[in-house]
């Protein structure tokens, strides 16, 4: 009836096998259609933005030291915020998912507030907390002379404040998905709770932790409102890329689009590089 494919040579068989592996559960077709629609919602505005890019002026616009300074500030602060969020946020998530006590839902609610507080107000709240006269900042200032709001630290704190909740919520969800049997088995093998956490729990929720870190990093990279209020907008010190975009918007629209393009390119390239490999279980 149908012409049989010629017997596959060894290499092509191997190729087929490695892509096919265990047969994937096929997504329902309707779902794929909706997924394309969802993607369009993101793709069309980004595409539209690309039409606005002043391609000819681009090289000269990007060569300014404003861009390179902002790039440095953005890179350092977004990575630092991601690292700090990992160190502080995963324990918070663990506590919310596994701890006990009635305080948990309150803590969860508090940990989610930075997402809903308007960025400018969030920045002000940070000032009241960590500024020169702030609840905590006063001690820090007296003890170390460090003025958080005027330094790169301020950018990092603002980014962490705004972005960390995404990690906390994601990891908590994943921990609640996790069947605790493996952790139990590990404990019964004599593993210290810390070992269980590090060697069993974290790897088992790996993809979700990575998803959370991506969220934190991306949110930090794009963070504007809280940073501008809390850390200011000093070129070379606290002016990150979104802040540079904002300033450019007032004077040179093309420059603003060009700098946005840098942001888009960075996150695009990073996410493409991380790609599937990073998502898979180690």
């Amino acid at each position, binding site marked *: 009836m149908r012409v049989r494919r010629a017997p596959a040579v060894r290499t092509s068989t191997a190729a087929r096998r490695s892509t096919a592996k265990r047969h994937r559960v096929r997504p329902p077709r309707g779902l794929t259609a909706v997924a394309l629609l969802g993607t369009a919602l993101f793709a069309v505005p980004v595409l539209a933005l690309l039409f606005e890019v002043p391609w000819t002026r681009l090289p000269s616009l990007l060569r300014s030291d404003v861009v390179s300074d902002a790039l440095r500030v953005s890179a350092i602060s977004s990575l630092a915020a991601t690292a700090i969020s990992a160190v502080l946020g995963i324990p918070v998530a663990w506590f919310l998912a596994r701890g006990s006590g009635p305080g948990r839902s309150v803590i969860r609610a508090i940990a989610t507030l930075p997402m809903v507080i308007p960025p*400018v107000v969030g920045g002000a709240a940070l*000032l009241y907390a960590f500024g020169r*006269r702030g609840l905590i900042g006063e001690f820090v200032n007296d003890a170390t002379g460090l003025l958080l709001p005027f330094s790169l630290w301020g950018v990092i704190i603002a980014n962490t404040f705004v972005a960390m909740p995404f990690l906390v919520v994601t990891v908590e969800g994943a921990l609640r998905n996790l069947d605790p049997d493996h952790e139990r088995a590990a404990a019964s093998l004599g593993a210290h709770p810390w070992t269980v956490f590090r060697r069993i729990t974290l790897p088992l929720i790996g993809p979700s932790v990575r998803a959370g870190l991506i969220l934190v990093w991306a949110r930090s990279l794009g963070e504007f409102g809280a940073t501008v209020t809390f850390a200011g*907008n000093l070129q070379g010190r606290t002016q990150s890329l979104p802040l540079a975009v904002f300033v450019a*918007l007032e004077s040179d629209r093309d420059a603003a689009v060009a700098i946005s393009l840098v942001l888009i390119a960075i996150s695009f390239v990073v996410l493409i590089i991380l790609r599937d490999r990073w998502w898979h279980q180690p």
Partner: protein
Amino acid sequence: ASPPERIGLRVFAASSLTDVFAEIEEQFEADHVDVDVQLNVAGSASLREQALAGAPVDVIAVANRDIMTTLIEASVVRGVLDFATNELVIAVPSGNPGEVVGLDDFARDDLLIGLCAEGVPCGDLAERTLDTAGVQASIDTRSSGVRGLVTRLEADELDAALVYLTDVNDIRLEHITLPDNLRTQIRYPIAVARDSTQPTTAQAFIQFVTSERGQAIMRESGFGPR
């Protein structure tokens, strides 16, 4: 009985005009009962993007002449007028903890000094003012707009900053006017949108703003004469 259908007049106004335009809206509507002024307040850059993208608008008032120039070049507006001026002052937290008396104090290392960012009108103006005064300011922070500086002054996180006069009407702030030789003014332009569906009413609104009554409202909030 339902009120008669009112004509909607869309007015795009820079955020620093929030208060005055609310007042102007009220009085203008009192004069023109058939008009419903719909204020759209946002940063000047947001307003520009909206206007460029063809947003339905009748009147545009911004705080940045460059932005209005872009709109003129794009043929989005016509009949541009300056309707108000503003000037920089030295703002300090109430009680003036840094004991600031003039621009010369901006050179002091022990104070926390803030300016608007370069490229933003208030930042460029501040730069020029300090240059003219010959002060080597020790800047601790810059802000994208006046708002950030005011928030910091209110929180006592800055000792002094150069901000617009209209931004210091807060009990947590005090201000020091600059000496006459350093006072320079920025102008606020207003224009009718080319696509306006109510060009006449739009023109009437602009007339009201530039009229003596309108200017009185502006003055009350600290704006200078046009």
